[in-house]
């Protein structure tokens, strides 16, 4: 009887050990990817911040109310650009993004441009219209790819396929915390309570025309930086998840070892008792 349970415990230990090897390996992979991902993220930040500032200054000076990128329309249909991961096992990383989309969308019909395998699968299951279902791999998404995507998104917006363009991604705060961001890309919202500037900026040809030309570039840069930000978040979320999984596995193994030794001891004691009992007869 004792022999059978010892064998079972031994098998459990083995299976937990092999799981631990996997989680440990994934943790190491994530750690090594993290450095590059963070570097890429840091490099993409200045552009997003500086171009945003320049665009907002021009938006504030727009007098024409009919600039396509600025004028809000009645929202009949939205488009979400959703950036998620290629794989799971990253804690709540993917689920949090999807939750944010569902919470923001409410009852308005929407279509999605999913980036990352998990996002494609998720929205395909939901039966939402996908603008593109070929980008499963977020890690190496290049700047020029982001430009082409943005161009298509803007064309759709101008055609009136959707009246609002919203970006949902995960922002890297620190190794321990990543936060889902929901940001409206189009129409561009005029900055509120901006201090009035008494300097007059000359826009050539005009603020409106400049926006027409510069907004696509700005959005592409924004998309690229969100992709880098999300990937850094994904990798660090995975690292954390795998780190705690490895720790849990370690604890389980030491618990099982204890149980195994007790069972072994019990079996030996029983055997001795049986031998002694046999000799006494």
């Amino acid at each position, binding site marked *: 009887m004792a022999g059978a349970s010892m064998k079972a415990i031994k098998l459990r230990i083995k299976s937990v050990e092999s799981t631990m090897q996997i989680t440990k390996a994934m943790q190491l992979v994530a750690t090594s990817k993290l450095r590059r991902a963070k570097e890429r993220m840091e490099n993409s930040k200045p552009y997003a911040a500086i171009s945003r500032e320049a665009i907002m*200054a021009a938006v504030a000076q727009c007098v024409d109310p009919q600039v396509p990128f600025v004028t809000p329309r009645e929202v009949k249909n939205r488009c979400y650009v959703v950036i998620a991961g290629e794989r799971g096992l990253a804690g709540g990383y993917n689920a949090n993004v999807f939750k944010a989309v569902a919470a923001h969308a409410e009852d308005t019909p929407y279509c999605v441009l999913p980036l990352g395998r998990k996002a494609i699968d998720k929205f395909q299951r939901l039966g939402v219209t996908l603008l593109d279902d070929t980008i499963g791999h977020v890690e190496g998404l290049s700047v020029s790819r982001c430009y082409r995507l943005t161009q298509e998104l803007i064309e759709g917006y101008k055609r009136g396929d959707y009246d609002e363009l919203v970006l949902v991604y995960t922002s890297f705060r620190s190794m321990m915390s990543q936060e889902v961001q929901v940001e409206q890309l189009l129409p561009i919202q005029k900055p509120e309570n901006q201090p009035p500037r008494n300097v007059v900026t000359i826009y*050539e040809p005009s603020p409106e025309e400049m926006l027409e030309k510069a907004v696509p570039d700005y959005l592409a840069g924004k998309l690229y930086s969100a992709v880098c930000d999300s990937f850094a978040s994904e990798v660090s979320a995975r690292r954390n998840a795998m780190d705690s999984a490895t720790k849990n596995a370690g604890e389980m193994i030491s618990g099982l070892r204890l149980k195994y030794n007790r069972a072994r001891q019990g079996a030996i004691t029983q055997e001795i008792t049986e031998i002694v009992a046999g000799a006494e007869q």
Partner: protein
Amino acid sequence: MSTFHLQIVTPDRMVFDGEAQKIILRTVNGDVCILPHHIDFAIPLGIGQAYVTDENGETRQAACNSGMLSVSGNEVRVIPVTFEWADEIDLERARRAGEAAEERMKSMDHQDRDYVMAEAKLKRALTRINTKEM
């Protein structure tokens, strides 16, 4: 000589962040030259060569592609899509890209959207080649 603070930033990196004496850029309205204490100014950029004169008076050449220029106070920001110094340009690659674009243009209608894109590609390639070879 007086200088201004110049930042050149592309989506994937900060190319230049420091003091400069002068910058010449190709905009949608032709070439402009920005000197210190320029009036506040913003304009979209075209595809063309850029010349940056740093605080030591040394001029460097680069191939600059689209985006915008923004001058605010004595802060000059160049926000292009791509920006490559002459010594970073891969001449072989630019030549190949140019030839491929030309090839594509031959088989296309002038009104086509792809034609315009191929034309821009050719222009970028030629700018890179010119920047490198000058």
